[in-house]
């Protein structure tokens, strides 16, 4: 059974340790701006929401990539960017309706969550268990997947 990241906003304190752990694991720098997971703040609701790629089945980024630089890790289901093959065209960054694959100007490549090969650093560091790595069918990202399905190009939802 593949696992997914499950975010529980009600438990998130906005401490940013996940961002720092991620950026350190991926870039060897404690720099939240380089993290693949981002915390968004909702002061009116007193909420902080950790946000990253859900490794969606639609894989908008992977389909849109013109140079075969994004592939699926068969073990974890994560969609992985090959820095070697990525030319930095950024098409994936506008194709992904979740905005969870992003361009880094200093490297000229795109980056996204790769689930750390099945041992996510954000999960390990989170002091309040607001980020869990659990069986895919148990995750609350079902709702996000629902939205992914709604934005599928083949559906016929229109604004009017």
């Amino acid at each position, binding site marked *: 059974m593949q696992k997914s990241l499950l975010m529980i906003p009600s438990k998130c304190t906005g401490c940013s340790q996940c961002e720092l752990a991620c950026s350190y694991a991926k870039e060897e720098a404690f720099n939240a701006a380089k993290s693949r997971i981002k915390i968004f703040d909702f002061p009116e609701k007193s909420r902080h929401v950790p946000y990253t790629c859900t490794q969606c089945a639609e894989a908008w980024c992977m389909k849109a990539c013109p140079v075969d630089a994004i592939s699926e890790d068969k073990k974890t289901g994560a969609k992985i960017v090959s820095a070697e093959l990525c030319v930095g065209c950024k*098409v994936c960054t*506008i194709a992904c309706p979740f905005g969870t694959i992003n361009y880094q*100007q200093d490297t000229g490549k795109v980056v996204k969550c790769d689930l750390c090969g099945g041992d996510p650093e954000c999960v390990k560091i989170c002091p309040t268990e607001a980020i869990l790595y659990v069986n895919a069918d148990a995750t609350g990202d079902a709702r996000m997947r629902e939205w992914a399905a709604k934005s599928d190009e083949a559906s016929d939802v229109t604004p009017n």
Partner: protein
Amino acid sequence: MTYVIVGAGPAGVAAAETLAKTAKGSEIILVGGEPEPPYSRMAIPYVLTGSVGEDGTYLRKTENWYEDRNIRYIHGRAESLSTGDSALRLARGEEMKFEKLLISTGARPIKPPVPGLDLEGVHHCWTLEDVRNIKGLTGEGKDVILIGAGFIGSIILEALLESGSNLTVVEAEDRMVPRMMNQVAGNMIKAWCEKKGVTVLTSTRVAGVAQADGGRLEVDLGGNKKTVDLVVVAAGVKPNADFLEGSGIEVEDGILVDNHLKTSADNVYAAGDCAKGPDYSGGWSVHAIQPTAVEHGRIAALNMAGQVTPYKGSLQMNVLDTAGLISTSVGLFDGVEGGEEAEDLNEQRFKYIRLTFKGDYMIGALTLGRTDQVGVLRGLIHTPVSLGPWKQKLMADPAKFVEAYIDRTQVI
């Protein structure tokens, strides 16, 4: 069943792969018009800069990718189509019978009616062959004129500048990327490029190109003349649909397709840059962009294989990197009558965001100087996501679009 796909760009390849999965046991023939394996034009500027080799542009990197899927990749150019007897004639005289045909022939660059554009040293930057021809003419100390600062011109601009060439860009309209950017953003991109050392001449037309000494070219900019080593023409593209003349298939500024990507002929479909398909923002449009090509290819193939799949319509969206300034445009960024718009502008810092709305929905967006989560703009517009109370919040602070998306699509 015999499926013929003419045109081996992203749309053709996506269609071939989809057919290989959904119409198992069928014969799938993919016809490419260029000698290389199927490749991406998107990646061409990166070959020009040398950051990747030619094989870095190939759409699929796995060896025997097409063979392993029983996709027969052959070389040929379409000459004519007879819908009556379901036959496609190729340029070398070969006739291919099909049961279902996909036209994914893409587009080709236009040469504007300017004297001298046939001279040696005048090139497009459209194919891998073009890149080979241009490469030696760029570099430190070389003078280059780029005709056209549209989307494609602006992509090439970055590569030409990176080569160290002295670069002049000539654009007939009054701003850079006129169809992808409004006046504010187009002017900011121009100012940025000028800061980076590019000479940008907007509202300027090239009157003619003439041979100069030493193999150089003299470019007449309407009085003011400039001698250069290379002229690159990026003045727009047009669909490769000439071979359809006499076929009865309806062509406007692209091959007309219905919302199943079918042309006016029953067993012929069209996809990608050559197709005028349903536009999510209304009506029918040619959206010559990579994501649309792939979506078209996939949906057309499903319908060709008998899995009736309506297409919800493509959303115009672009992302551009002009010498380090990144811009995105999505949907109806000019807005619509009776709609609303919100802007946040900081010209000094080259930051700009503009959102347009109609009723409860976002319908368009422009950003400058932002790389993070820009995909959410597509998510909000194309899903579409009802904004509720976030409409007013975004009117006050348009940069909060990610928060709007999260709050409206998740339980938080």
